[in-house]
């Protein structure tokens, strides 16, 4: 008989009636064969593993994290709220101690969704992990959280959301941005001036396989996690680094994925990408589930697996052996030269141009973080896109001081008077509300 070491809850939501477009990788069929495999394996009958229904996240849950323009409901669908609700449910069952671990096997994904949202990019509209984490912080008072993102694409959305948050460690292992979307995720991106070293990126050469990922777990991820001591480890479990994935060039296998997951010992895993829907996902997901539950996964193997599928060039191994300690050092000793301290008045500023490939939009933004001596500082973002005129987001973060709170109110009042903005969204994480003011011009359009 099968006996689990960790009780595991799986929120399985394949959204069989939702697609970005009929032939898009993010289509109805994506988790069909995964469902077949999980059902045929009888995983939900294993004592200690249970299937859960997702909740529906509220717009408040989304607005705790995102500035969304013009309105939150304009940038997402019901399916996004259910996927986020699935992640929240997964988080709650762990913090309620109902389950030792959980896996939100949900779609659509979210890790390319940034702090400010105008539409869909990289198949993502809102960030499932961030919506979950901020809900858990609000509901359970969780503070230190680590997110380890093993999707093949750089988790630029999660990086952007937590760029200035010293209490959230974000580590992304992904195919080198010079060879794939979204083109970011280099070691030099280490976090904002108040959170330097809390953001780690490991660009992997195409062809990196099981050996490379496991090496990085041992030499980089685990040592950093041991030092950071998170209360919660969240795994952004994208599966497009599989050797058979149609849109990437990596060599990870289901065995490699299960072993990675075994080493990581995440509390909560959330599905991200992964588009080899027949050859990889059924086996990788079975592997993750067995591994998280502490069950034997040695028989999980893709039918198409050949030794050459997971072969790794000696040069890659050599490169990763050097890269791992170098990135590790960025956490322990973030070098001053990588910290961007450009200022406008008493705010640190950062200019960004963001391309929304899914919706074909361009966003221009300038981000402001108050250089406050007492707290991580009040956050502002001025943004406009090809679809939406100039908007403003102001966030009073959950760890902001009283003086930042007063400043936030002043900024909000001044912005309204200025009549410069089509929409102003104000997020107050201390009192946990979000407020939106719509300018006259925008009001008529909406």
């Amino acid at each position, binding site marked *: 008989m099968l006996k689990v070491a960790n009780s595991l809850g799986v929120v399985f939501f394949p959204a069989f*009636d939702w697609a970005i477009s009929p032939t898009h990788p993010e289509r*109805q069929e994506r988790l069909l064969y995964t469902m077949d495999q999980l059902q045929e*394996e*009888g*995983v939900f009958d294993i004592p200690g593993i249970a299937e859960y229904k997702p909740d529906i996240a509220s717009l408040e849950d989304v607005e705790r994290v995102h500035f969304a323009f013009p309105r939150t409901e304009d940038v997402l669908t019901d399916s996004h709220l259910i996927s986020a609700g699935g992640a929240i449910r997964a988080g709650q069952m762990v913090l309620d101690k109902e389950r030792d671990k959980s896996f939100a096997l949900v779609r659509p994904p979210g890790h390319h969704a940034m702090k400010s949202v105008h539409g869909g990019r990289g198949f993502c509209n809102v960030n499932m992990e961030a919506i979950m984490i901020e809900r858990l912080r609000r509901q359970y008072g969780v503070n230190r959280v680590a997110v380890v993102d093993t999707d093949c694409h750089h988790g630029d959305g999660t990086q952007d959301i937590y760029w200035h948050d010293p209490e959230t460690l974000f580590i992304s292992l992904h195919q080198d941005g010079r060879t794939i979307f979204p083109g970011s995720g280099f070691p030099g991106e280490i976090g904002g001036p108040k959170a330097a070293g809390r953001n780690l990126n490991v660009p992997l050469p195409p062809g990196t396989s099981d050996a490379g990922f496991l090496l990085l777990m041992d030499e980089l991820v685990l040592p950093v996690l041991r030092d950071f001591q998170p209360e919660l480890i969240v795994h952004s479990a994208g599966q497009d680094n599989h050797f058979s994935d149609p849109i990437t060039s990596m060599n990870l296998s289901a065995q490699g994925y299960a072993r990675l997951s075994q080493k990581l010992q995440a509390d909560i895993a959330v599905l991200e990408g992964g588009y080899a829907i027949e050859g990889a996902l059924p086996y990788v997901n*079975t592997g993750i589930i067995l591994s998280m539950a502490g069950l034997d996964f*040695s*028989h*999980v193997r893709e039918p198409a697996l050949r030794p050459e599928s997971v072969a790794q060039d000696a040069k890659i191994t050599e490169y990763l052996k050097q890269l791992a300690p170098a990135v590790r050092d960025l956490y322990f000793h973030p070098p001053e030269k990588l910290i961007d301290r450009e200022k406008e008045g008493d705010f640190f500023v950062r200019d960004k141009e963001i391309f929304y490939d899914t919706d074909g939009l361009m966003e221009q933004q300038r981000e402001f973080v108050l250089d406050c001596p007492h707290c991580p500082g009040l956050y502002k973002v001025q943004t406009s896109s090809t679809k939406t005129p100039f908007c403003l987001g102001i966030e009073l973060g959950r760890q902001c001081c009283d003086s930042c709170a007063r400043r936030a109110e002043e900024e909000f009042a001044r912005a309204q008077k200025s009549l410069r903005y089509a929409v102003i969204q104000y997020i107050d994480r201390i009192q946990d509300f979000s407020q939106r003011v719509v300018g006259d011009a925008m009001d008529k359009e909406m």
Partner: protein
Amino acid sequence: MLLGIDVGGTHTDVVVIAPSGVVGAAKVNTDPENLLASVRQALEEVRSVLGGQVPTRFALSTTLCTNALVQGTTEAVGMVLFGGPGIDPSLHAPTPHCTVVPGVVDHRGSVLEEFEAESLEQVVEQFAAQGLSAFACVGKFSPRNPEFEQQAAHHLASLGGWVTQGHHLSGELNFPRRINTAYFNSAVWTTFNGFADAVAAILDEYGFNCPVNLLKADAGTLPLQQARRVPVETIFSGPAASVMGISALCQVQDEAVLLDIGGTTTDVALFAGGVPVIERHGISLEGRPTLVKGLKTRSVGIGGDSAIEVHNGSITVGPQRFGPCLAQGGTRATLVDALNVTGRIAYGDTAASFRGLETVAYHLDCSPARAAESVVEAACAGIRDAVQDLLAEVNQRPVYTVHEVLWGKGLHPQHLLLMGGPAAALAPCLEKALDMQASVPEHAAVANAIGAALARPTVCIELFADTQQRVMRIPALGVERSIGAGYDLEAAKQDALAALQETLEDSTLESGAAEILESSSMNMVRGMSMVGRDIRVRCQVRPGIASGYETTVRSVC
């Protein structure tokens, strides 16, 4: 006239139902050592009512296979499993005589690795040497391609015994459940078929050349000829018989909760849309999940004879039972004694009940009358929790589409149906605890035999079509057909319903309409183009009361 017999653990009940109503009913003791004798005795009881007429149908519900499992008198089964990537199949083995033969079929039914014919031959030799005569073969993803099972069955058949093939049991994907179901089916096969032969002989003797149906755990029936191949379906048909009996007596139309309050336990069952709620995947036998469709039930250890305990001022009723109530000469105060003291019933030696409740009252520091009320309330609260648990579980059923998440309304019954000894006495308190309207139907005593007599046939099948591979299969019916690239969901639905109708044509009792439970057609896209459709249809004939008899046995509910 319909003849129904329910062979229960204690009693064997028989009814004869004419279009005008119940014309004969009797109860005899069940002889667990000789169930056939009980059947014969029950038939004798109603012989005069029948007056030489041959019933139009004879339906039987029996604990035979259940008893065989409980008493461990099942047969040893030689099993062949075909695994494939995933969980180690040997971990699922329900018996030591179980061998895994290498070979791989995937979720699309493609053979990725041929099975090792040599290994299979070795297994067959080994089973022969072990003198086994019941077999089962089960392959991973066999509903998508039963080829390996068919080949194995062919080899095993040379040994002369019965062979259960996994895909014949259900088209649903669940390898471990399919293994367990196939195992139990073969394990009770000889027992059941021996009984079936004997029943047929008795009926011959009586000159009853009518169709014979067996009740299943899902509250439907199945012709004896079919039951001979899937005896596992007849396990746990007892509760189904009572539920269908109540369904007939009360003409349940919509949602309802049924509570069968016995001596030791209260059994909870649910109705949705007028039919009993069935376990989504199947019931468990000896702690092993199966694909046998059965009622979704919950049992709570609170019944008339449940002992009353007081601990730190709080009362619990059950799950302990130390014998009958004080009113019936027992040694411990029970729920029935409390009901006696509240004046809701006057059962047996009421003075003994009062004496017992005085002790309870002493521990609670209140009057015996107050104590008795508290006991009844505690019992109702315990039953309420079980009902709410079961409803929560049903309403938490995972759904896989945005539409279902947004529009799934769930089950919210307002009507409570009560049966069993203390039912009437507990009705007001349960009404209050559950905020539902309660009814206590009359004639509930032989509800099980009525249920057996009136239950319609049920069937549930899955169709799977892959237009890229040009194949359509209905595993449970052994249907496999090639299809054109243009085959679509509409065609699949029609094929599934037609196949269902065809299987029902054999059965003599007019059945209910076939309905589609789930259906989906998903475009399979490879690269940027559509290469075919993955079409799935699940349809069923749900449980119900034989047509023409819907209002025959109406009771006051």
